């Protein structure tokens, strides 16, 4: 038994040493490395002002009350009746993507940006006029390296630079 135990101790240490020297690393070195996400990633949402038919389905399906219909000022004044358009509140959005999936005109689209970092609370609320201008561009102190996760049968994940 004691021999068996000693062998097992040695095996455990040897395995540890193998990994220490083998450079088996799974960590993504964020924010020096930024991962590019696969297509269909459910990130922040883009809004197409022109194709939207103002049906309100996106606001109706939203489980977090993040998507809401706002009275669109200029249009309402022009048409002399309230025109409502969707706006999004990123303090509430949970990125379920239901709004994107239900929009009958594809006016809402996923982007691959998920950095919901803002200085103020108010900045996170996007009424329609702001929503149409697109998502904020992430800013970095130093331009990061873009990497992609490659699944690998030896290493699990390798992060490879994308050109």
């Amino acid at each position, binding site marked *: 038994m004691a021999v068996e*135990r000693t062998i*097992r*101790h040695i*095996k*455990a240490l*040897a*395995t*540890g040493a*193998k*990994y220490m020297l083998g450079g088996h690393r*799974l*960590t993504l070195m964020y924010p020096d490395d930024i991962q590019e*996400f*696969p*297509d*269909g*990633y*459910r990130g922040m949402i883009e809004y197409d002002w022109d194709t939207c038919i103002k049906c309100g*389905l996106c606001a*109706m*399906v*939203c*489980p*977090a009350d993040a998507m809401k219909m706002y009275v669109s000022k200029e249009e309402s004044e022009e048409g002399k009746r309230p025109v409502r358009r969707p706006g999004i509140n990123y303090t509430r959005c*949970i*990125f*379920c*993507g*239901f709004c994107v*999936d*239900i*929009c*009958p005109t*594809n006016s809402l689209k*996923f982007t691959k940006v998920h950095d919901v970092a803002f200085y103020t609370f108010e900045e996170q609320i996007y009424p329609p006029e702001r929503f149409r201008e697109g998502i904020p561009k992430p800013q970095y102190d130093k331009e990061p390296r873009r990497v992609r*996760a490659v*699944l*690998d*049968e*030896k*290493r*699990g*994940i390798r992060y490879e630079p994308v050109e």
Partner: protein
Amino acid sequence: MSLEERELEVLIGPQHPASGHMRLVAKIDGDIVVELRPNIGYVHRSVEKLAEVKKYLQIIPLVERPSLADTTANNLAYVMAVEKLLGIEPPPRAQYLRTLLAEINRIHSHFYGMGIHGVMIGSSTAYMWCFGDREPLIELAQELTGARLTYSYIVPGGVRRDLPQGFEDKVEKVMRYLENRMPDYFDLYFNNPVTRARLEGVGVLTKEDAIKLGVTGPNLRASGVPYDVRKAEPYAAYPELDFDVITEEAGDAFARVMVRVREIQESIKIIRQVLKKIPDGPILNEKYMKMIPPNLRKQVEETGHIKFPGVFANLRVPAGEAVARVEGGRGEVVFHIVSDGKMSPYRMRMVTPSFRNVILFEHLTKGARVADIPAIYGSLDYFPPEADR
């Protein structure tokens, strides 16, 4: 306290003592636990009550939230109950895709549990390894669903997305990776004499007690009870797949870990079968498919991404009651929905495996050493938010 009094009360928690916010009230005599009572409810989120004011589709993300690492089980069980009330069935391909995600999720949920257990008994290497090896699986799930953990992938009548291009190859790579890596896990952690000394013979749950206490999931099977909802009441694509129910006889903390390890190997087997057998065809029930406008239907066929029919925004479910259950990573998940025909359930009951297993804290720790508390806790893969809901 007088000198004659031997017992001391020790409060463990409630600020995140291990896998979430809960408090363990321990009475100890020297190094021996006289009594340990779990004090739960610190992360109660009122999921059941909230469901009464949310619409049916909106409840999907809600029921996922409490379980964090094991969201697919809740998503699937809830949708199955809704489908029973609606009287619709998902097409075969969707059943396979549900199974695929459920098994990917089971593997990374087991890694999550084993990793936390590892760090609880002092092996931060096991923790790092398990959390690292969750990542390839999460990458897979992310490519399939668009999110890392909160997939909201399963909707009434089917699933939201078809397999992405080249997905089978990626899955196979990850499965091979896990198989390659498993022997090293044994050498470094499971067969490590330190791990064995900490876990073997600790927190023994007998078969009779496991049944009597209503324990569920891997914790039940580690005591030699071959009960698994996937076999007992097969759902999704499980009736067509070949797999075994994993059991261990010892009923101790180590047996509970071993059940999870062997279930990972079993899930690998299931995933391979799913990808081999998956039939072609639609991924959403015909009834809903027809409700999608023709131009969008074409787009759905091209992209493999479902567009929701408008009725999903205000889905009405016929009056009645339905119960559905699935085998999640941590055990049996049960949903009971009572509908009065309106846009929200009249009442929804959600029974989670962690809630059923929490009784083991009291049962298994009596007479154990204080240092065994984390060893037992971790072996249960108990997750406070899931129990509290």
